[in-house]
């Protein structure tokens, strides 16, 4: 009896090692890619990286804690605008501004989270939607501080050591190093007791809030903490985005962005933080392919055919991959582990 359990534990441990190896391989691949491609693909990959960071937060929130947010563009925006404002108006160091952005995002998330998570499902989605709207309209209106609808321009690039990150090449490395660190953190969370507790609370995935509560789990506190973490992720990505794009304007931080990260999380797969990369890669990859390929086949109004194709592909992906791309990836990578 005991031997069997022991053998089981050993097989779990090897799948932990397997995941570690995958992370290492992934890091290697992502770090060497820029050497072989031109500036435009690199810039696309920067987008993928940034979206992935935000989406990982969404996966923790939706896939693990079982809550929904269709307003995360607000946190992305808080990071972006904090960085933009502090570095252009007040000459604050970009890294300090990034840090402050995360503090503000996390703080706001923690503050409103307690009240928010009294709601469930549809109503919760509604309140996150309202939150995004409030952010968007506030930012559009505070013209003196935020530049209003026109936004802020001439945001300085990030500097680290002697490196000036104005070139996409270097930004790529920074984004992806951060993305992989965030991935590591998220995977650790997912495979730990914390991840287990989150899954136990997730009524959409087979958990039970009542059962969790009588076992001593403060369900609300966990929801709020995950929400805050996802806000921090989005804020980090937002800050980097501000320095990368050099411009911020309100339209970027609106509902379409929020819905897009949810779609990415969903299509990538809610079961694992890896899903973020799959989802972001898919959506952005499709977008780029369409914009590249379509004009070759059909001439017409730019954007029209691409939009149509985008919609069709989205519908097809949702219909045929209800569990996300990650369900296609072998079980070895996503099997639940209980051992360190």
């Amino acid at each position, binding site marked *: 009896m005991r031997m069997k359990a022991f053998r089981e534990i050993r097989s779990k441990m090897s799948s932990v090692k397997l995941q570690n190896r995958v992370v290492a391989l992934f890091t290697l691949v992502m770090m060497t890619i820029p050497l072989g491609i031109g500036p435009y693909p690199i810039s696309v990959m920067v987008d993928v990286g940034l979206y992935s960071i935000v989406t990982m937060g969404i996966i923790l929130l939706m896939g693990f804690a079982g809550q929904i947010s269709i307003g995360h563009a607000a946190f992305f925006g808080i990071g972006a605008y904090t960085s933009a404002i502090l570095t252009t108006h007040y000459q604050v160091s970009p890294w300090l501004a990034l840090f402050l952005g995360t503090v503000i995002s996390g703080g706001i998330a923690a503050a409103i989270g307690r009240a928010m998570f009294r709601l469930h499902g549809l109503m919760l989605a509604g309140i996150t939607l309202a939150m995004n709207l409030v952010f968007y309209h506030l930012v559009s209106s505070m013209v003196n501080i935020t530049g209003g609808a026109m936004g802020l321009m001439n945001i300085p690039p990030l500097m680290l050591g002697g490196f000036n990150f104005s070139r996409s090449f270097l930004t790529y490395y920074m984004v992806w190093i951060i993305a992989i660190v965030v991935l590591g953190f998220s995977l650790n969370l997912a495979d730990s*007791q914390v991840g287990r507790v989150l899954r136990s609370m997730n009524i959409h995935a087979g958990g039970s809030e009542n059962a969790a509560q009588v076992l001593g789990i403060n369900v609300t506190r966990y929801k709020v903490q995950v929400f805050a973490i996802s806000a921090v992720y989005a804020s980090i990505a937002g800050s980097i985005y501000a320095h990368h794009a050099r411009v911020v304007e309100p339209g970027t931080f609106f509902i379409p962005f929020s819905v897009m990260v949810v779609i990415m999380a969903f299509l990538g797969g809610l079961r694992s933080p890896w899903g973020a990369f799959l989802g972001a890669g898919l959506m952005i990859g499709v977008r780029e392919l369409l914009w590249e390929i379509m004009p070759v086949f059909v001439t017409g109004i730019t954007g029209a055919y691409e939009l149509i194709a985008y919609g069709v592909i989205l519908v097809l992906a949702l219909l045929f991959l209800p569990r996300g791309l990650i369900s296609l990836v072998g079980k070895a990578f996503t099997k639940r582990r209980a051992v360190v």
Partner: protein
Amino acid sequence: MQTDSAVVKDTVTSKKVASDKLLLKVEDVSMHFGVLAALKGVSFSVPKGNISVIIGPNGAGKSTLLKLISGLLPLQQGEIWFKRHRLSRVPPHRISALGITQLFQDVQLFSNMSVIENVMVGCHLRTRAGFLSAGLRLPQAQANERRILKRAMSKLSLVGLEQKAWDNPASLSWGQQKLVGLARALATGSEVLLLDEPYSGLLADEISKLNRLIIKLQRQGITILIVEHLTDVLMGIANQVIVLDYGEKIAEGTPDEIQHNKLVIDAYLGSG
């Protein structure tokens, strides 16, 4: 309100009991769901180390009572005391931290994780797992995981299911699922277990197995409050029986006393 370490008369049974031996005290508890009165003025006390059973015909309010004790339902009227703590307006997770946990009638195992992980979730109260240390995979978090796994395994062994540790809960028989639920509840280390109809759906051999387990747990010092339908099984092991009918307590005493109580017999067989 209980006074310290004096000998008091238990207001309910009129027996002399050291007051600090009364673990759980339910005082004049009533509960309405709209117009429906589920419980009316129910009072009783459970001494430490007891196996106490609440029985009564269907709809008598038994499950409601358990949910009030574990905090899943808000207390409308009356008081519930656990040791020196008043349990009104205390959220369920805090009540669990104080030492009371519940096993539901439908168990509600987490179907998105293996059996052992279910029990590991139960170890939650015994860990200090923070987001930061877990995310950074700090040594203390890793040690934590090992400790939790060990503890969960031991609870699973206690109910005899360590072989099924890595299986999907859905692949277990109903009786086995109940045992996993029990192991999960035990992992919390609570001194009071509330069991809601634990015998429902069990086969004969599973029933006797559960009985033996409950007695074993009692010997380990755990106080058990059971709500049940199947009365014969429990008469053998219970120290205290409380009978509810239409939300009111109609009798209380030892199994022997209850079995000869006219009111109880009427309630089960008679007018209803």
